[in-house]
């Protein structure tokens, strides 16, 4: 069925110019000869870690390269026409008409000064596909299909008046409005909370099915793409690793790399027996200065010595605020924090050097957590110097020991953060925390900015270090797979309150409260058809109520 082929890419080579600091610009090849075929009405998932070239390949389907990126070789055939070397005018008539695009961050992609309707129908009108009333009617139809509230009037709102999940769906409507042949979805649910992601995912899937549009679905999350795609292509370093039907990739991956991706969430950790607490928080209530709203409401939790308490919740649930209150950055308005048998002063200024030393923090973004003008040696060495007065050779020796502990070896002490990979940066941050010989490390979403395999490595490292150093972790995360992997105790937070708290085995076992149930059932599972099951289950429940 050759005439059913929508998109055919052969031997695609994509290059870019990179500007390493202090060096002459150089050419790098991002994509090395990738082949790809997409039939009409099919969905192909492109999956890989950051730098795999998945977005770059996705955008090449409309012969587009982001700033500095050039499509230098191969052929891209769309609807029977070669488009890689097509003229700007030809590309203009194709983009936003035959091929449309849904980006990761809808909030950053909408014009805040225009109503949603204006933006959703803009391309359809600009390309002369339909008249304004037709386009508006189609937009309303799409709003309804995508499950947006009040589809008739939804378009009258401004982007800031709707939630992130709704905005992402509005963007999908925008992409589908001109009846394109192909939609490129570039990580459309990655920036959303797990409970929102599932709704958007279901809406996108239904819309794809109803409109019979073909799609390239780009993501780093295999469990997500398994719900949407007919076929999956696994990419790494700009080369194809494996291509197959979704069920085959999930169930019987042929390549080692795919196997690693599939099994990445299977890290398990046996719960430790109860022990006396190193940190006890009682009735903690806090609000930000100048506001009249408690971000934390009477939070009480305990963290046993050398164990891990995972604090789980979606964004805005107050979990990072809890960390700020414990570290003293945000003095609570009431409540007590007892650490290692002594009560901690509510604000930073009232704490002793030992108080500060024994509670360390690791941040989500390792990039901004390290001073770009300091070498790794200085970053790790400073706590040694500051808390223990280590100088010169003694300090350098200890820095090297710590580097060995985080499995980074020799030669890193003289490097700057910009010369490290994402995972290495986070390891250096861990080493900096360990250098202080703390009793408690607060880990604030430390793996959420990392690729799954790298994140897995970091979690394993943290578990090993806990066994060696007997340090306790307060582990803040929104990812339940991470929680399963690392926690001994769990506190589920919702709107500033702890709604469920206890040993891991208790929290993760039924009966659940409503919110925990929602949270747990929203985590995508690596299984074809999981999404339908969950949606059907929820419909049944709401019908039952």
């Amino acid at each position, binding site marked *: 069925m050759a005439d059913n082929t929508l998109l055919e890419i052969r031997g695609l080579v994509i290059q870019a110019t990179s500007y390493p600091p202090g060096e002459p610009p150089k050419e790098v090849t991002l994509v090395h000869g990738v082949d790809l075929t997409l039939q009409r009405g099919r969905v192909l998932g492109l999956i890989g870690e950051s730098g795999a070239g998945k977005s770059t390949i996705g955008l090449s389907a409309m012969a587009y390269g982001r700033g500095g990126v050039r499509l230098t070789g191969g052929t891209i055939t769309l609807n029977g026409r070669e488009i890689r070397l097509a003229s700007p005018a030809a590309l203009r008539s194709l983009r936003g008409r035959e091929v449309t695009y849904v980006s990761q961050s809808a909030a950053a992609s909408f014009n805040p000064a225009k109503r949603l309707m204006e933006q959703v129908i803009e391309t359809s009108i600009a390309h002369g596909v339909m008249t304004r009333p037709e386009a508006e009617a189609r937009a309303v139809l799409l709003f309804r299909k995508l499950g947006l509230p009040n589809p008739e009037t939804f378009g009258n709102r401004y982007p800031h008046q709707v939630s992130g999940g709704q905005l992402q769906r509005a963007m999908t409507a925008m992409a589908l409005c001109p009846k394109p042949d192909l939609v490129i979805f570039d990580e459309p649910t990655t920036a959303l909370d797990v409970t929102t992601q599932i709704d958007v995912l279901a809406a996108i899937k239904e819309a794809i099915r109803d409109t019979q549009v073909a799609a390239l679905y780009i993501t780093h999350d295999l469990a997500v793409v398994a719900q949407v795609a007919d076929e999956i292509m696994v990419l790494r370093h700009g080369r194809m690793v494996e291509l197959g039907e979704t069920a085959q990739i999930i169930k019987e991956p042929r390549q080692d790399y795919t196997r690693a991706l599939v099994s990445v969430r299977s890290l398990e950790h046996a719960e430790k027996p109860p022990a006396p607490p190193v940190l006890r928080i009682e009735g903690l209530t806090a609000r930000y200065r100048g506001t009249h709203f408690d971000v934390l409401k009477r939070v009480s939790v305990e963290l046993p010595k050398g164990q891990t308490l995972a604090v789980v919740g979606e964004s805005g649930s107050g979990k990072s605020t809890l960390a700020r209150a414990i570290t003293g950055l945000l003095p609570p308005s009431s409540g007590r924090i007892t650490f290692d048998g002594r009560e901690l002063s509510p604000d930073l200024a009232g704490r002793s*050097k030992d108080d*500060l030393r024994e509670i360390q923090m690791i941040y989500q973004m390792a990039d901004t*957590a390290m*001073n770009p003008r*300091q070498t790794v040696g200085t970053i790790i060495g400073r706590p040694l110097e500051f808390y223990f007065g280590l100088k010169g050779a003694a300090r350098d020796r200890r820095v090297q020991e710590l580097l060995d502990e985080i499995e980074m070896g020799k030669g890193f002490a003289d490097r700057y953060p910009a010369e490290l990979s994402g995972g290495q940066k986070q390891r250096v941050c861990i080493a900096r925390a360990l250098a202080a010989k703390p009793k408690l490390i607060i880990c604030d979403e430390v793996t959420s900015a990392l690729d799954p395999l790298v994140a897995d490595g970091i979690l394993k490292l943290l578990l090993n270090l806990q066994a060696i150093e007997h340090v306790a972790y307060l582990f803040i995360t929104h990812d339940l797979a991470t929680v399963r992997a690392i926690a001994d105790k769990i506190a589920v937070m919702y709107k500033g309150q702890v709604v469920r708290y206890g040993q891991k085995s208790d929290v993760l076992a039924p009966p659940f409260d409503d919110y925990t149930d929602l949270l747990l059932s929203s985590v995508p599972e690596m299984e074809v058809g999981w999404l339908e099951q969950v949606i059907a289950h929820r419909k049944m429940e709401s019908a039952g109520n």
Partner: protein
Amino acid sequence: MRLPFSALLGLSLTGLFLFIAIFARWIAPYPIDLAVGGVWEGPSAKYWLGTDTIGRDILSRLIYGGQVTIFVALASSILAFSLGSFLGFLAAVKGGLVDQLLSRMVDLVMAIPSLIVALVMLSVLPLNLTVLILVIGVLDSTRVFRLSRAVAVDIAVMDYVEAAKLRGEGQSWVIFREILPNALSPLVAEFGLRFIFAVLFISTLSFLGLGIQPPLTDWGGMVKENKDGLIYGKAAALMPAAAIAALAISVNLVADWVLTRTSSLKGGRGG
């Protein structure tokens, strides 16, 4: 790394000016205050740029005057930067009342044109180089304060600064070790620009008679001395004016080049 032509030109001219200023005593063909020729003689083999209102060699006076101009401008810029950036960083790190107090004081000073403030201060205070440097330095530091506070506010919210605070580091570590190294490139570019403003400011003050006092001279003062010659078609006043312009342009070219290399301030690699 290839230098753009403009940067090369700026660097070599600035270097030339500095070289001449430092070795003025050995380069200048005549003494600074000796009448060696006729009044307002034109350029000749003997007096390359001619002579001035009382017959002194203009080239020699330009060379000595450049020394004074550059020295005073440099000293006051350094003062302005030490004071302005320290207070700016402090305001950014401390925030709250300290920030409010410092910022409003700076607003107050900036609300009055600095030339008028300088004129009032200099007519009250004794006229010597130290006072001149102090007045220009303090007035200029308000501009530096604004910039360094703005740059530091962006840096102060970075996690590594928070990490340093959580470690228990003192104010001076946070300012000098965490913030300063990251704020340096925009500040260096700004230094070039402030230096030029200082040159122009001194020249203006001297032109008005409140700057450098005889027997020392500077370029602004030389314009003043020779301005009457313009009426008679004598170009003597144009020589120091051209020198001021040349110095300003060459330092500006260098500052531009530094600024385009700054990635943090302009969010890119520049041109």
